């Protein structure tokens, strides 16, 4: 009797779990909106961190646009993998830049971004007097996949 009751409860529960999984599984965690937002914000922070480490006046670059696309899944333009992000900005000295970043996004919503042309650039950290990788040309980032932003429009 107890076994029957267990089965009667377990089967609908399993079906409900399966349906929830199937339906909500359609919205990817790694969307273009989330990648673009986080990469542009983290780039600005990285740029300022780079200036601070070099003991320069800390000023944010003026972003004109950030456009990211998934290089592996071009149809859906979503999901983990290699993304390319084009960041257009004006540096505090007035110079315009159009930088291409390779962004390796993992399935747990973190990424490593590299400026393809200046990947190995180093700066002198004035605090430690050591050469360190320039945060402005390579940085790590993570974004929240529970933030409710489920828009996957391109």
């Amino acid at each position, binding site marked *: 009797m107890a076994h029957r009751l267990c089965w009667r409860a377990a089967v609908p529960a399993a079906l409900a779990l399966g349906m929830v999984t199937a339906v909500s599984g359609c919205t990817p965690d790694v969307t273009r909106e989330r990648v673009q937002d986080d990469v542009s914000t983290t780039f600005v922070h990285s740029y300022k961190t780079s200036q601070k480490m070099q003991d320069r006046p800390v000023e944010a670059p003026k972003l004109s646009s950030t456009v990211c696309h998934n290089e592996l899944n071009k149809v859906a333009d979503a999901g983990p993998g290699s993304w390319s992000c084009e960041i257009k900005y004006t540096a505090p000295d007035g110079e315009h830049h159009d930088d291409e970043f390779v962004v390796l996004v993992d399935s747990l919503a973190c990424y490593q971004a590299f400026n393809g042309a200046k990947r190995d650039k180093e700066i002198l950290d004035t605090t430690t007097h*050591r050469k360190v990788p320039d945060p402005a040309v390579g940085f790590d980032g993570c974004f929240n996949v529970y933030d409710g932003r489920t828009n996957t429009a391109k």
Partner: protein
Amino acid sequence: MSAVAAVYRVECRKLIAQNRVRTVLAVLVAAPWIFIVLLLHQDRLPLETLYGRYLTTTGYATSLVTLVFATQWVFPLIASLISGDIFSSEETQGTLKTILTRSVGRDSVFWGKLGAAFSFTVLAVAVLAVSSLLAGLVSVGGQPVTTVGATLVPGDHAVGMVAVSWVIVVLPVLGFAAMAVAVSIVTRSSVLGVIIPVVIGLVMQMYTFLNAWDTVRHLLLNTPMSAWRGVLDRPAYLDPLQHGVLVSLGYIVVATALGFVVFRRRNVTAG
């Protein structure tokens, strides 16, 4: 309660006397030191690993990179090696009958053994955390940390951030330990008790490499083990942590309940 405590004390003494457990703890002490010493003698940094680019910039990155690696492969192994034969070894050696005819009840034996397994799993995580932190601070120094949000955190604040990150992974690691205990009870096999949770951990890890349903990934233990990344971000976000706590508790409760029920019903006189 005193019966549970008595079993707990005995089981802790048995665990620390095992060569396997001592070897695991020794490896966890040595591994971060070997890692950072080797890394400091090479030209390139592991840029494709979270915090890898900062390994020579700040000592705290050693602990965080160790945590990234450990959440992927090491923690399921640690949990299994410590907890995977805590029940089955009694069956293998035929000592379960003698334990259960003493003055402590079957429930006390279960909770005492489970408590010891969990305590040593937490100890192993703590040993790796402290060792990796010391290795980084001694080898590189306590310079400010650049978070994943690309903001600088002073060294004295970074200690707390790193400590919180390691505390966050404890619950999902206990999920693997609970699984190991359950498998150890159900299969009565020490080999399977160690291997099956490791294989489950590998399968979970491989699933995270696939571009498959994200909702399934949220229900795996790998996701809660990475919840610390959001806590270290600036601004921090706690949703993955809150979700991860529920998922981890789900694994712990289900696995512990399964082990408890099977252990209660086990006919030890037949074995």
